[in-house]
Structure formats: structure tokens, C-alpha cells
């Protein structure tokens, strides 16, 4: 095919980290989902990309053919440790999930709502008098970060500034400093687990992981599990929160609807999850030759499931390029699918609902600067780099 406007042939020369994808993600995946069910990348070991909802769904469910044992990253750096439960198969996967699920099921997390509301309001207090806020670093990533570390995993409040700074630097700071910042945060969590091991049990998710025994699942893996579930929710939930606030800043009618009737938020949040796909492309590896949409993919080949493209498939979603805050049903794949369905999906939804309820209640009127153009970064995850908002201080409600 001829080179498209975004300057790269993503059908035959896909690259999940391509700079063109940062700027043109929506257009690229809209083209792929309509015209190229199976794309290919020659990068490194080479990999295929599945784009249609039905193919992505089937592959995610068929974990025996599309294995997670070799991780989700194409061209995985040598020696990089695997993260459990995301990078493993059954029977270990289901055994570990059965230990974790009861702490993050819809019924289990409902008890955290008052503490989440408190956390959200504490964060809003920090900037509400200023009349301006940089959402990504001052709100969107801090809500899920603080909620998981402090509310769910019981880490001390005084650790939060350090962890928040480290995660923020690790996610969207200068690229050369990201690895070091993330390592510092993970080491901190490892020390917290050592401390918890020496304390009486609290019956929470940390104890459940520490007590879980499985051949080959060592202390370092346990720290990895807690780190993964901590980190897994921060930038991802943060991007959806930032995306929702960006949309609502640019669409006053939608904002007014949600301010006037917050009971519309759960349906609207599903649309923000679909549209601002925050973990849009995760890999598997084939265990045998398999045909997908007419393409034979050989055994032992990396395959990326483009959940971001699948959620914009016109076959399951009419007018997929539009944000429709009343869309129902909304069968998106923001949280992936199959047995590896995002562990924290229900906590993410609760964080988004309480985060938006409190933000819209206290700051019902806000805008982005006229010359602001959002910049995104895409890889396994997708982030908005910054989101400056301005609001009238005299309109902002007290808590």
C-alpha cells in the first residue's frame, strides 16, 4: 500500500513504540481494524498484531494457544524477570488469581469507597485554591497510586509522597530517569513486604500474597506481584481520568449533564475506558500454528492483542470514533479479556467514579488553555503527558 498520512505502513511495518503512533494512535488503529485484521512487525524477533474484536476476544480466551508464559512484551530484554500473575499460564495463574481476586472483587472493594473519597478530596485540597492544576502529576496518577498503596495494601501515609514522586517519574518523567525511579519504588515495596512478614497478619491482600505457597514462587516473585498490581493501576487509571477530564473540558454540554446528574457517571466511565484505551496492546506467544482471519501464524511466534483497536471495531461498536457518554451496551476491551482480564478493573472503575464525582462536584466548571494540544505516549500502555486545567476559584465548592 502507499504510505499513509501518518508516515508509516502500519500494516506490514507495525511498531508498538513508533513515534507516529504517539500522535496518530486513533487514526492508525481505526484503519487497521477496518482494513487489516492481522498486521505484522519485522522489528527484532518480529510479531503479529490482531485488530478485530472477534479475533482478539478468541485469542485472549484461548490461553493454551496464545500463551502468557513468555510474557507480554515483544523483544523482551534478556534477563527481565517475569511478573505474576500476568506473565504465566494455568494452573499457576488460576491458583494465584484465586488468592488475589477476593480482595479486588466488586463486593470486596465497596468497603474502600469512603477512604477513596477522602483520598480524592485530600488531593483536590492541594490545588483548589490555585485555580489551576496539572492533572496528570497532581491528580490523575495520584488517585490510583495512593488508593492502592495506602487504602488497599495498608502502606503508611508518610510513604506516599516518596512513592508518588517515584511512580510519576517512572511513568512520565524524563525517559533516562524512568528506570531508576521505578526501581526505587519497587525496592521500597519489597522492604515493606519484609516488614509485613515480621508483623502480625492483617488479613489483607499483602498477607494473602505472602502466605501463598506454590513451587518456584519465591519472595522476590511475591514482591513482584505486589509491585505489578500497584504499578498496573497507576498510569492506566490515570490516563482514563485525564482523558475523561480533557473530554469534559472540551465538551461543556457533556460536563453539564454529568455535573447535574452524577448517576450518569458509571455509563459515561465505560465510554472513557473504551475511548482512552490505557493498556491497548499486550502480547502472547503461540504454542502451535494457528490461522487467524486467513493468516497462518507459526508456532512460537509473538502475537500482540490490540485491545485498543478491538474497542474501536465498528462490528461491535457503532460510531466508534465518537465519544458518546450515554453509550449502552458498551462491550469494550479496555481491561483485556480471557483469564488475564485486568485484576484491578473493579478498583479502577471505583477510583474513576469517586474521582470524577468529587472533581465535578467541587470544580463543576473548567477549561484547558486555548492553545493546548494533548501529547500522548504509546507502548504497552498509553499516557497523556500533561493536562493543564484552569477553573474559576470562586465557583469551586468546599469539601
Amino acid at each position: 500500500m502507499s504510505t499513509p498520512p501518518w508516515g508509516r505502513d502500519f500494516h506490514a511495518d507495525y511498531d508498538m513504540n513508533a513515534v507516529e503512533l504517539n500522535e496518530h494512535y486513533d487514526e492508525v488503529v481505526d484503519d487497521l481494524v477496518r482494513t487489516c485484521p492481522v498486521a505484522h512487525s519485522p522489528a527484532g524477533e518480529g510479531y503479529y498484531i490482531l485488530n478485530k474484536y472477534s479475533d482478539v476476544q478468541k485469542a485472549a480466551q484461548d490461553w493454551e494457544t496464545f500463551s502468557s508464559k513468555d510474557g507480554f512484551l515483544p523483544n523482551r530484554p534478556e534477563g527481565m524477570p517475569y511478573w505474576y500473575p500476568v506473565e504465566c499460564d494455568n494452573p499457576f495463574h488460576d491458583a494465584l488469581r484465586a488468592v488475589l481476586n477476593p480482595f479486588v472483587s466488586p463486593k470486596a472493594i465497596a468497603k474502600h469507597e469512603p477512604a477513596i473519597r477522602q483520598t480524592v478530596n485530600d488531593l483536590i485540597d492541594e490545588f483548589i485554591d490555585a485555580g489551576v492544576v496539572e492533572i496528570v502529576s497532581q491528580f490523575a496518577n495520584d488517585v490510583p497510586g495512593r488508593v492502592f498503596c495506602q487504602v488497599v495494601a495498608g502502606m503508611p501515609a508518610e510513604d506516599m509522597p516518596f512513592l508518588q514522586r517515584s511512580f510519576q517519574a517512572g511513568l512520565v518523567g524524563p525517559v533516562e530517569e524512568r528506570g531508576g525511579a521505578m526501581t526505587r519504588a519497587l525496592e521500597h515495596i519489597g522492604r515493606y513486604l519484609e516488614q509485613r512478614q515480621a508483623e502480625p497478619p492483617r488479613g489483607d491482600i499483602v498477607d494473602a500474597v505472602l502466605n501463598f505457597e506454590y513451587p518456584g514462587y519465591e519472595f522476590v516473585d511475591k514482591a513482584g506481584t505486589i509491585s505489578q498490581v500497584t504499578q498496573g493501576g497507576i498510569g492506566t487509571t490515570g490516563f482514563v481520568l485525564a482523558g475523561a477530564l480533557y473530554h469534559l473540558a472540551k465538551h461543556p454540554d457533556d460536563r453539564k449533564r454529568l455535573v447535574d446528574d452524577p448517576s450518569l457517571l458509571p455509563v459515561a466511565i465505560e465510554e472513557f475506558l473504551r475511548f482512552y484505551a490505557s493498556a491497548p496492546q499486550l502480547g502472547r506467544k503461540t504454542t502451535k500454528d494457528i490461522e487467524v482471519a486467513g493468516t497462518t501464524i507459526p508456532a512460537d511466534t509473538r502475537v500482540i492483542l490490540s485491545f485498543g483497536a478491538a474497542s474501536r471495531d465498528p462490528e461491535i461498536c457503532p460510531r466508534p470514533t465518537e465519544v458518546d457518554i450515554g453509550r449502552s451496551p458498551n462491550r469494550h476491551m479496555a481491561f483485556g479479556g480471557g483469564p488475564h482480564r485486568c485484576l484491578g478493573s473493579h478498583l479502577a472503575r471505583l477510583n474513576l467514579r469517586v474521582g470524577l464525582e468529587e472533581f465535578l462536584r467541587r470544580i463543576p466548571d473548567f477549561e484547558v488553555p486555548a492553545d493546548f494540544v494533548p501529547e500522548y505516549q504509546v507502548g504497552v500502555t498509553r499516557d497523556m503527558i500533561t493536562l493543564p486545567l484552569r477553573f474559576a476559584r470562586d465557583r469551586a465548592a468546599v469539601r
Partner: protein
Amino acid sequence: MKVKVDRTKCSGHGRCFAVAPEVYDSDDEGFIVSDADGTIEVPEGHEDGARLGIDSCPEGALSAITADATASTNEGAAS
């Protein structure tokens, strides 16, 4: 009306009991609850909620069993 659950496909997305709590329920891990035969009896008057639950499942794990005993899922439906 009854709803048939494919337990091999339910992955605990929880959309069914989020959109129609009067029809669907979840267990301690967050998976759907059904009768021993893998079906759910829809309370009279809640058929629309049951269908919204079926159409909201990202895994296509739910299907309707209506009076004429034909099952229909959301597979391929642009609803």
C-alpha cells in the same frame, strides 16, 4: 426467560451484575453466580435488564434461552 452461562468464558468482568443487579449476582472472586445447570432464571419484568447484561459481556459468555428454546448470544451483533 432464562440466561445460559458459559463458565469457560466468564472472566469476572462484572458487567452483567453492574448493569442488571436484579438479574445477575457475583461470587466472592467476582465471577457470575448461576444455578447448578449453568442457567439463571430471569425474574418476570426484568427481561430487558437480562438482555443488556448479555449484550454487555466482553467475553460473549451469556446467551438467552427464550420460551421457544432457541439460544442467542451477542456474537457479531452491532447492538
